[in-house]
């Protein structure tokens, strides 16, 4: 499989990364090179093989239902580029 520039632009938008025409052209080549490389996987017969869901053979630990965190809005918004009154602020979202 290979991608064209329109696909690269669509994917870039899905990933919310602005790309210029020139970048889109270059990235198309690079992505095709990588996709060509991963094409080798087509040689492998994976019929009946379970996909790996976790590399460690262990059971997922559960947490007790207790409140152990929060009540520190200053640390939550402390690194925000723009905040006001402990809210994060972003360019207006039009619903």
């Amino acid at each position, binding site marked *: 499989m290979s991608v064209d520039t329109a696909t690269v632009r669509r994917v870039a938008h899905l990933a919310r990364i602005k790309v210029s025409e020139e970048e889109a052209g270059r990235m198309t080549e690079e992505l095709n090179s990588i996709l060509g490389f991963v094409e080798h996987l087509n040689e492998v017969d994976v019929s009946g093989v379970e996909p790996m869901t976790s590399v460690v053979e262990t059971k997922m630990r*559960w947490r007790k*239902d207790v*409140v152990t965190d929060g*009540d520190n*809005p200053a640390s*939550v918004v402390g690194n925000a580029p723009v905040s006001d009154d402990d*809210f994060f*602020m972003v*360019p207006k979202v039009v619903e």
Partner: protein
Amino acid sequence: MSLIDTRTPDPKKFINGATGDWEVIIGMEVHAQVVSNSKLFSGASAEYGGAPNAHVSLVDAAMPGMLPVINEECIKQAVRTGLGLKAEINLKSVFDRKNYFYPDLPQGYQISQFKQPIVGEGTVILDMPGETVEVGIERLHLEQDAGKSIHDQHPTMSFVDLNRSGVALMEIVSKPDLRCSDEAKAYLTKLRTILRYLGTCDGNMDEGSMRADINVSVRKPGGEFGTRCEIKNVNSIRFAGQAIEYEARRQIGIIEDGGTIDQETRLFDPREGVTRSMRSKEEAHDYRYFPDPDLLPLEFTQAFVDELASALPELPDDKKARFIADYGVTPYDAMVLTLEQSSADFFEKVAKGRDAKLAANWMTNDFFARLNKDGKDIASSPMSAEQLGEIVDLIADKTISGKIAKDLFEIVWTEGGSPKEVVEARGMKQVTDTGAIETAVDAVIAANPDKVEQAKAKPTLAGWFVGQVMKQTGGKANPQAVNEIVKAKLGIE
């Protein structure tokens, strides 16, 4: 999901269009907030409200390097709910990431369950007038709630509060088994009842702890399924009904005018009573689901499920059946009484050792009407089950008449006290002493010879004599006894 039609088209539910009858097909995705102290994957409080970003951990704010750890109570709540929906519980399920960008979605993905949910197929039974409707449950899965954006505080900026971010939700997906807005409303009501019985969701739609995405399509009765539209985030049962009515008619109108339905997401505007396309969100979604690599598969044993099952409360359907069987109440009264756990408990206290039918009657009529009038619920009722029970006793043993009982009810409701003592103190006992009643009847007959003559020709005039006697005895005479004696003395049958 493949669509399987489980229903027989029923003309009572059709909507009549210009070109004939239409059938509405409705399916629901209900988001129910799990009752828990802390969030699904973090230790921050799940409590509603709070100062901005106060119920937020660094995990909820998606700080770099933060990792989710699952809350065991949320797992239990989902399993309990699955059991309450008579559904298949999956001993192994998987959390996936649903990827999209939105300012109130800090991670850039929502942790949800896509291919392998914790709960599979189940059933909800609706008691509709004259029929019982079985609604299939497709699945129930656990997922994170998003934060909240506030758009009206600033001319060019939106404010983001992450207090809701990461709170556990159960998404309960029904099959497209509903056929009219009444069924849809009944489904939401029944689901809420079940969740409240189980204590897994408070069902408080005002605070958004239960909200529905409603899929609506129309078709010619029994025909192919039509294209559906999804009405997002409906937060009241009444609105759900209005939204479906509007949306079905909108779709019928388009098709009848030769148009086609675009599959799209819409919002219900309760002020105008219409649904509107969410144009800003029309952009094609590609959620790129994949298993969350920060979380191992969720696994538990059948023994874990069995233990939760053994501690489950009696469910509304079971309780209803028991009320009908043990108390002999009507199916309708049983349904009304079991709508809320608290009403059912109250009823059982009132009915215990008494005339249960009479108790059910008084609860479903006078008692609920009075609560409603005062805007109160069972918990804040000024009248206790014992008080209402005493009133029922006084009626049953004929100490008071039904009419006096209404006065007594009002006195006890507003002033309190023991109904028996009130009846004693205020002389409200009905007169059943036939001697006293005969004396009164004789007096009325003696004073009205002309009426006596008329009554002999027209027996319905007996009622006039009864009324006079009741007036003389201050309403306390047993009306039945008066009626019998009047008829005997007048010699009419």
